């Protein structure tokens, strides 16, 4: 299946893109989807721990075991700094 992956701010700079489409095996869970994204973009964890990245599926913070489906909108970003 194919999903869209969005990057913002620091993660957009590090991946060199704000939006990418990737292929994942059917039945992939959020945690495994993030692993796949981090494998593809090693700069994201070059200078920070994976645990400091935030991961959203369809515009909501994702639980690790959440199902990811065809056409979903994923997003990987650093701890927010608005305000």
């Amino acid at each position, binding site marked *: 299946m194919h999903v869209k992956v969005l990057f913002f*701010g*620091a993660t957009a700079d590090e991946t060199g893109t704000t939006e990418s489409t990737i292929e994942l095996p059917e039945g992939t869970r959020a945690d495994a989807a993030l692993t796949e994204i981090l494998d593809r973009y090693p700069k994201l964890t070059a200078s920070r721990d994976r645990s400091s990245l*935030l991961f959203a599926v369809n515009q909501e913070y994702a639980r690790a075991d959440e199902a990811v489906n065809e056409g979903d909108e994923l997003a990987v*970003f*650093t*701890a*927010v*700094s*608005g*305000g």
Partner: protein
Amino acid sequence: MRLMFFELTTEPLDVGAIARRVVPEECGATVTLDGYVRRFTKGRETEHLVYEAYEPMALKEMDRLAAAAKEKFEISNVSIVHRLGKLEIGETSVVISVAAPHRRAAFEACEWLIKELKRTVPIWKKEVYADGEVWVEGE
């Protein structure tokens, strides 16, 4: 009257107009938090800031926070506006305004909302210095 306002805008923010929007007839007080661009952060001089958002998710999170605030506190209305794009020193970046029948709840809810906004709403700040720039990572 709409009860909740959430907005992301690249236009300058008018604090007074934002506070005024949330005033219902039964309420006597509004508490407003107004955040703005500091010249100095940890001794380093900022030239300007750039804010970027994951816009649809940020609006959803603001809506979720306001709904949670209405559950937790006895408040009537909430307005949350965050500016995006380039901001000069001293310009307002965020305004959170809460109207409530009793001011205690308005103070509590406003303080809770800015704390949660800084923790969960997907907006990022880039500090631009004379000699470089950095995306700020939250805590």
